[in-house]
């Protein structure tokens, strides 16, 4: 294997990104482990609590995130084809979708908080143990996922800047390609969170 040029080992960069995603899988894996154990311990309570989630908002959010994945995928292809204008527009659209997602998430959170349901709240602590755990997991898992979305949005904002300044080109697209991988991964996590919190009723 030839020693590639130091700065431009695109395949190396991609490997690095995939490796990072593997660590993310296990990071979220820890949470899914907790979820599955507590779900198996308190099936009835989890069942009931999931029914309280706002299915409409959850579904919209899933659609939003899936669409954003389409945008970023096309944006990357556009870079590779040299169509930078289209790429910038679609990256912008991805950011927008990300923000919409976070907005809707915030609405859901605040609606719950307004009802007094949040970790350690007097209302929640009076509920059954299964419910305490369900909502605890809900906040932690969607919260950490939301944090990932937020980071993604920021990173894509940088990519827009790089595309505009010519730092990302059809020859040198590692950065945006890796950003895309990250964004899709965040999408995949949500693909699982959605049924676990909204559908399993």
């Amino acid at each position: 294997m030839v020693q590639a040029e130091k700065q431009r080992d695109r395949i190396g960069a991609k490997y690095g990104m995939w490796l990072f995603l593997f660590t993310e899988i296990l990071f979220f894996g820890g949470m899914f482990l907790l979820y599955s154990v507590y779900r198996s311990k308190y099936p009835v309570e989890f069942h009931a609590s999931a029914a309280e989630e706002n299915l409409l908002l959850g579904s919209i959010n899933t659609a939003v995130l899936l669409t954003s994945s389409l945008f970023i995928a096309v944006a990357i292809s556009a870079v590779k084809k040299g169509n930078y204008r289209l790429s910038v527009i679609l990256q912008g659209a991805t950011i927008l979708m990300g923000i919409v997602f976070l907005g809707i998430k915030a609405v859901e959170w605040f609606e719950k908080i307004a009802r007094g349901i949040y970790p350690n709240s007097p209302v929640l602590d009076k509920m059954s143990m299964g419910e305490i755990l369900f909502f605890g997991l809900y906040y932690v898992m969607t919260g950490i996922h939301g944090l990932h979305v937020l980071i993604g949005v920021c990173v894509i904002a940088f990519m827009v800047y790089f595309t505009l300044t010519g730092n990302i080109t059809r020859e040198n697209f590692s950065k945006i390609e890796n950003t895309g991988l990250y964004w899709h991964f965040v999408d995949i996590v949500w693909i699982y969170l959605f049924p676990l919190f909204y559908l399993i009723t």
Partner: protein
Amino acid sequence: MESTASECESFYHEKGKYKGILSWLMSTDHKRIGIQYLVALLTFFSVGVMLGLLIRLSLIAPGTFIGQETYNRVFSVHGIIMIFLFIIPGVPVAFGNFFLPIMIGARDVAFPRLNRFTWWTYLAGATLVALSLFAAGGAPDTGWTFYAPYSIRAKANITLAVTGVFVLGFSSILTGINFVTTIHRLRAPGMTWFKLPLFVWTLYATGWVQLLATPVLAITLVFIILGRVFGVGFFDPSKGGDPILYEHLFWTYSHPAVYIMVLPAMGIISEVIPVFARKKIFGYKAVALSAIGIASVGYFVWGHHMFTSGMSDTARIIFSFITFLVAVPSGIKIFNWVSTLYKGSIVGSAPIYFALTFIFLFSIGGLTGLIIGSLEPNLQLHGTYFIVAHFHYVMFGGAGFAILTALHYWFPKMFGRMYPERPAKIGWFILFIGFNVLYFSMFILGYEGMPRRYFDYPARYFPLHLVSTIGSWILAAGLAIIAGNLLRALFKGPKAPADPWGGRTLEWTIPSPPPAENFVETPVIRD
């Protein structure tokens, strides 16, 4: 230095973008980063050693030197520093950084700037841990395992310490990613997988463990932080949580972590033994693949730390069974090392003294690991000094002695100077005696039922505690001689040739210390 010296200056003199101290702190050169890691590690290590000696001192007369509360904080901090600041990052970040690229014939790691960044994250994490010692509230007093629900209720600065460990974990993950990518992408032409030096193989296996295990620790620590700050009760029984689940998550990381400590250490031994036996390693492929074997089986044995935790009997039997399987690849390594000596022509230099001692001490540590990995004896020995003895034998007798081996073996290459042999061997001898006096008595203590993390104990355990403490002073004397010897050589030692030992790996083909970009021409490996 030898002939090539004139064309390429050593990396110590490299003229970079920055001047003075910044030329170190901002450098992305893997060798400079490696040296900086080494300095940081040894600094924390000496703090850890002091605390260890303090533990021993306190144990011969509980209450005379330090109080109960202080004792609890001291052993916790001793554990946290030794594990998270010293021995887990240890070999990879110091020696791995310095030698991995050279050994595979590369100019640097795959992501040099990321490498720089990990050093800073390491320092940030270490700083947070250090802060937790001094901030109001007091140093953590949970033990290095942070068991819930105690760690969620205790009043000390646990949040701070845990955040620090989280950051350190992040640094460890990034190092893993960097190394794995480097080994995949930057091997010199002709450097096929089965021509890789064995040290590189172990770093590769370690890299994967860092990558796949550390995130589990990260999320576990996040749960602890959330529990303390927001009252999320995942491990709090009054909120339905299950404290045993914390133990599962913690050990899912922390058992593989013991292989992060020992695998690269084994790599060092695999390098040193053939060089000083002046022949090739016996069963190269078996040694290389057993590293992968240890890494992958080691992922599934974490439950052996929980045999008396209230875990189901079914799980205990499964975990004990898998635990025994880990011994097989470790055994393969030991057997191949010993066979390498066969028909060799052994040169008795300091590095091989340490390396062979590693084999002996690690075997004791590992074999006692099997005793406590058995279902019945564990009922007796868990939570006693037997465990303390086991892990000091593997961590310090194993990984620690490998670091000493590496320090002596690579000292000429890293610093361009030779050290005198005699004091090194005298130091080795005292260290060896002190080590066994210190820790072997702990096996007996543990067998007799002395619990660990005990500030105070029934009088019948006193004699052995005293023996152990005396051992700790002998040990410290040995270490002082070794450290003094190396420190003196650093400034006064004669210049080292490119290849003082007759080593066969690539680092010995370049001058000591290596030039900035390692190789003038990318080496091509042939048979």
